[in-house]
């Protein structure tokens, strides 16, 4: 059994690795978060589910404080907390209601919660049960990766992209890239990539698409509206899905979505379930939502004297309200934004914040 300090060390190692970008990409972060929590569950000392929940919640606070802009970490912690609760209820001998804990019907959601559980009684083989359940979660994660298992996002590509369509996307998303490539294996279509200044990751995306023989055009962000009338579908990735179905996506997505709305072009958002979080948008500013990075790229640092006379901002994210999104394509099928609340209550316990 490890002491508290040692688990602290592995948590700060994890934070450091993410900050230094040794672990990058939301999928990898999800996997390693689960690894980390598994380690916590196995290696720390706890007797009841309550203690375990406490340990994980403490670490989760610490993680959230240090990595406020990595929703994947948050959502994985939420998933695991939920797993612990479920397994506790399942494993308890004096289960109040045979199927109450597991099967949540639509009706049950509307009813008042059953009296608060205290998680204090000792459940035999709770750890084994939890770990087994986590393995299921891991399999689910692996399926949402872009390889060839049955129910993943990329497999759905051909259902959404048809021959000779023009698809518009913005910036770089490895998921969108894999999605388009999968469709390109069977059909021929054209892709327009908005460059997504000032980072211009769209250039890289276009190069990769063009390499796999997809007809690709890069455009400036300002010409999105002009070209939207010719576009059949907008397919974008996202950083996070907020609890109301809105997106925290790369800067420029909002204008793309608005242009699409104007021309009644459907907007599909590719998002594996681990991008879903339980927070709502409360302000567009840094501490709650956005991230302002160095203004280099908007204005060059080498430009000299002008810098002391101007304010330059370089926000990373845009908020896209849920009404502009047509469909979320996730690893368990397509969902409308209005359905996100339901997914949320299925995946997490909402009072686990």
């Amino acid at each position, binding site marked *: 059994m490890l002491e508290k300090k040692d688990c602290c060390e592995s948590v700060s*190692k994890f934070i450091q690795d993410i900050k*230094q970008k040794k672990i990058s990409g939301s999928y990898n972060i999800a996997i390693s978060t689960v690894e980390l929590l598994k380690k916590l569950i196995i290696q720390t000392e706890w007797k009841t589910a309550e203690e375990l929940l406490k340990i994980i919640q403490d670490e989760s606070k610490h993680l959230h404080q240090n990595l406020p802009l990595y929703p994947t970490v948050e959502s994985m912690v939420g998933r695991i907390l939920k797993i612990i609760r479920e397994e506790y209820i399942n494993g308890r001998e004096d289960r109040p209601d045979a199927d109450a804990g597991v099967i949540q019907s639509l009706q049950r959601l509307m009813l008042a919660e059953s009296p608060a559980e205290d998680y204090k009684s000792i459940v035999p083989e709770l750890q084994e049960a939890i770990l087994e359940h986590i393995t299921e979660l891991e399999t689910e994660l692996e399926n949402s990766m872009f390889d060839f298992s049955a129910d993943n996002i990329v497999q759905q590509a051909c259902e959404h992209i048809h021959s000779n369509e023009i698809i518009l996307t913005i910036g770089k998303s490895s998921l969108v890239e894999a999605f388009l490539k999968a469709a390109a294996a069977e059909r021929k279509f054209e892709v327009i990539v908005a460059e997504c200044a000032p980072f211009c990751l769209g250039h890289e995306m276009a190069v990769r698409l063009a390499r796999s023989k997809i007809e690709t055009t890069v455009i400036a962000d300002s010409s999105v509206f002009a070209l939207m009338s010719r576009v059949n579908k907008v397919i974008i990735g996202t950083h996070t899905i907020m609890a109301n179905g809105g997106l925290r996506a790369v800067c420029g997505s909002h204008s793309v979505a608005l242009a699409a709305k104007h021309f009644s072009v459907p907007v599909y958002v590719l998002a594996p379930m681990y991008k879903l979080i339980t927070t709502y948008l409360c302000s567009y500013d840094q501490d709650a939502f956005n991230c302002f*990075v*160095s*203004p280099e790229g908007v204005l060059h640092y*080498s430009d000299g*004297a002008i*810098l*002391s006379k101007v*304010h330059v901002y370089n926000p990373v994210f845009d908020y896209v309200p849920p009404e502009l999104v047509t469909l979320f394509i996730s690893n368990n099928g397509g969902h409308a934004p209005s359905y996100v609340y339901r997914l949320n209550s299925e995946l997490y316990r909402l009072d686990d914040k």
Partner: protein
Amino acid sequence: MSNTCGNKLKSSETMKKEDVLQAVVICDNFNSWFEPVSFYVPVPLIPLVNSPILEYSLEFLSLSGVQEVILFCCSHADRFKKYIKNSKWSKRSALMSVSVMVSESCRTLGDAMRDLDAKAVIRSDFILLTADVIANIQLLPILERHRKFAKQDKGAVMTILYKEAGPGHNTRSPEDETVLAVDSSTNRILFHKKVGQTSKKIVFPLETFMDRSKTELLYNLQATRIYLCSPAVPPLFSDNFDFQSLDDFVRGILMNEEILASTIYWHCLDTAEYAAQISTWHMYQAVSHDIIHRWVYPLVPDVTLTASGERYMYLRHNVYQQKSAKLAKGCVLEEDVVLAEDTVIGENTYITSSVIGRNCVIGKNVFVSNSYLWDNVVLEDNSRVEFSVVASGTVLKNGCKLGQGCIVGPETVLDANKDIKNAYLVASTSVLKDDGNENISDRKIVKIGEKAFMYTCITEDSDSEEETKICHPSGLILDSQGESEEESDDDLTGSNDMSYRASPVPDDVNLFFNEVLDSLSRGIEDKLDCDHLILEINSSRYAYNVTVQEVNYNVVRALLSLPSSSTSFAEIKKGLAYFMPILKKYIRNDEAQKDCLQAIEDTIGGKSELWDSLPKLLHILYGNDILEEDAIMEWYNTTDETSPTATAIRKEVQPLIKWLEEADAESDSSESE
């Protein structure tokens, strides 16, 4: 005399010793730029936007993957030890080990390096920096580069990092203005000179340019004071006792390249990376500005440096505020303001471009602009602070005014209604005397209160300040008042077309033009045959891949811009006569004539003294059948109304046009007869 204390991690011990990336941080700047504050607080522990400067450098090293840091202290060693002990770096969860090494006998950086050599703690390539460096660089790729240099060149001992920043950039330290000559194929530094603001002339040794395909001269660089060194650097300091600073080192190595068999390379940071050294109050101000404007992201108050306290909120107009700061009714935080925890601000107070520390109490109707207030400062009602640094614990009583670059030492108490400009203030004279610093005891010290003594700054180098900013002896830039502002605006517009980045690659057409100009001037000097010159021009045409049109245009332009013919028409005439075969060769059709006329207009248009000879020039060309009447008339009639020169030139040639028209009419009439 010296000892080490530190905490090694288990993990770093299990790692192979050579793989551990080491950084040596020198915790002393060996000068008195930061007095009087530096008498009380060692410079690396001075708060910069409410965190000690050292915290930024350690955070930077940790983020860039350094595993072991050696803090090399020469004075105030116990303060550093205490600081590290209480900081997050000594917690077990820290992934970077920080050890403090003390050597009180060191007086210069050179001594420190020699001491380091004697202690033999350096195992492989290491990073050398002073504790006052703020950066957000990824060091590992640059280290790779350094190793590559070292592989190609056994003598490569150091890679110096520079950041691109144009002249006039606020974050360029006036003390650190450097001119660099580098070999652009190998990135080796050939010449390095610090130019003060006074010297206007630089002499480059001839070897800088000899036997090299390409040498770059650079003056758009800001020194970052981060050095990647090979293990050979400390021994080099030991061998050469006259190396006192890193500048000495660089100069010495470059001068005695053969004897010491060592070379130095440079690396220009990626545009997204930031690095600067806080060497003076000026830099303190500039870097604070850069941090508040987020150039140093992620080292900004609301992201990284919050381990100790609560988070900062980042609000619009670059206002950073901790939640427990209390603002009264009617107070305004204009822009670029940082407010730390538990600070209380009274009614109708106005704050702009300032940093306010923890637990400060600011009264009613206070005005604070462009100032840096450290922790526990009290500003009573109606006081006014501009362009000043106020160290911790200072109290300004009712109605005090501080302005124009005051530096106030800690715990000073200023009585009511004092108005002080441009001075250093300290709480007691004892620090000044204790320190035994001669040039301080010379100064006039005025007692202005029980706990307030004032002495004015020595004006050592205020002689030739640039017009763009009024630079104060203490180094703070004061640039918001009326007159100077106008001046600086003029200056800006004047230099707007100046490029602050490296000069652009000359385009092919320009190269072609220069080539043609060379050929022609050589031709007229050596009396070369025109046929040979045509051949030469043709070959350059293919070499630079220019169109026929550009060839015609540039040949005529070159002909008129020959150095000999730049002033008098007689010379031009001589040139024209000599090169007539060339013109005949190139100007053969209507299009070419158009280009030719355009070239004449552009070239002569720039030299108003030649305008009156323009008709004669056209006449010669007409007489030699280079230009036809129709082409001239067409050119004459297509004026660009907007350009005054074009209209003026056409006015000049009016007599010729008249003459042409008459001649035309005559010939018409003669034909009709």
